[in-house]
């Protein structure tokens, strides 16, 4: 009688019933990692450019950056994804789901990164850049060797936060047919009818990824902090 099956056997039976889906879920984790990496790189580029633009004294540089940050921060990320994936093809440019997803999330996260970087830039005393310029460095050298290394240390905690948000936001890309972890789980659930099990497994896998991201950041932070 099934009522008398002992717990160990029950667990074994449960494991057996999900085991075959795990490789597929892990594969979709790899897609999450790829998406996150690409989005983070794009968001850092957008964020740095927008932060420098917004702190510039030149209105031609400042205005577009201010508009960009204002627009992104004031609209839902999902709408931004839809604009890129469904909207842009209407103008004649067809993007693969992966490209559209990376562009949408990267540009979106970039606005938040810009605000973080701007905060970091404003924490560097003006005398630091002044002594660099006075000794003959170009604006680029001053940024590269004097300002950014210090900014990186200051913004590491908030930028980690933003990277974790980015990782979690990749689940929004399930809406544009990218089979990342969320969509993969939904697909499995649609033929197993076991939402509780598979959403919990998805959550655990997300936790594993965000936790390793955060501990890497903590490790880097510790290394930078010990120096000066």
């Amino acid at each position, binding site marked *: 009688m099934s009522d008398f099956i002992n717990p160990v056997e029950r667990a074994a039976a449960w494991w057996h019933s999900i085991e075959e889906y795990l490789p597929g879920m892990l594969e979709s984790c790899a897609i999450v990692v790829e998406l996150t990496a690409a989005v983070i790189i794009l968001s850092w580029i957008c964020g740095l450019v927008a932060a420098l633009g917004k702190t510039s004294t030149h209105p031609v540089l400042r205005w577009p950056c201010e508009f960009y940050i204002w627009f992104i921060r004031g609209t839902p990320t999902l709408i931004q994804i839809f604009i890129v994936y469904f909207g842009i093809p209407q103008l004649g440019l067809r993007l693969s789901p992966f490209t559209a997803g990376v562009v949408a999330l990267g540009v979106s996260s970039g606005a938040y990164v810009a605000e973080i970087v701007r905060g970091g830039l404003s924490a560097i005393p003006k*005398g630091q850049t002044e002594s660099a310029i006075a*000794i*003959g460095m170009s604006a680029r050298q001053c940024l590269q*060797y004097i300002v950014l290394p210090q900014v990186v240390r200051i913004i590491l905690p908030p930028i980690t936060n933003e990277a974790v948000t980015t990782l979690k936001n990749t689940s929004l890309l399930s809406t544009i047919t990218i089979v990342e972890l969320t969509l993969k789980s939904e697909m499995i659930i649609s033929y197993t009818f076991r939402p509780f099990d598979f959403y919990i497994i998805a959550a655990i896998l997300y936790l594993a990824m965000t936790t390793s991201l955060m501990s890497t950041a903590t490790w880097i932070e510790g290394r930078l902090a010990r120096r000066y």
Partner: protein
Amino acid sequence: MAEAILTLSSLHKQYGGLEVLKGISFNVMPREVIAIIGASGSGKSTLLRCVNLLEIPSSGTLSFDGVLIDFSKPERLWRRGLSLRRLRTRIGMVFQSYNLWPHKTVLENVTEAPIRVKGMARAEAVDIARQLLARIGLLEKCDTYPSRLSGGQQQRVAIVRALAMSPKLMLFDEVTSALDPELIGEVLDLMATLAAEGMTMLVVTHEIAFARDVSTRTIFVDGGRIAEEGPSREMLTSPANERTRQFLRRVLHQPVSASARP
């Protein structure tokens, strides 16, 4: 007679409607040490910053080491961005607040510009930096970060950082004003040594004794103009100008005799 190393002629600087420099002209000969004194807000810092083009003067001309720049033709100036930088590499500047780079060690602070700006080989830059640091007795601190140094030590490193570029002219903007009184001496001593070795220097200072004993000439700036200039010893002991006298009385807290000069 020798060529002037620096010539300013009717240099003006405006911030919006505020005219801070109202026509400054003077020559600096090689090996001259010029003290610039004046009340707060009279434009001394602005003057120094205009010399190495941290601020671009509104009009007038500046000629340094054979290069003439005319600020009334600004459009030409921008196209010469590179030569402005080259000019800065040959003028060292030391600030009131040291402005060392906190994320770099003492040694790296000194080698950074020779390597990045001059393209000097690292080994050579390190060699020069170590020699300079040895001279100021801070060689054993070369791997520490600036935050671990006293104000006086930081300021001496800042001076050495500028010297590592082998400048032809050194600018000092109230470099002892942020220091505890007991640390002022070590910085002034280093500056006096440089002066004795023949470095050409423009020194904005409130240290009247230093100006009198070390500088060859003193310029008194008042309201964006040069109100008086002359050999330091005479001018600082018996100024001709009433404003200079008032100023000296204020900073020295003691009476200054009227001019006995011809």
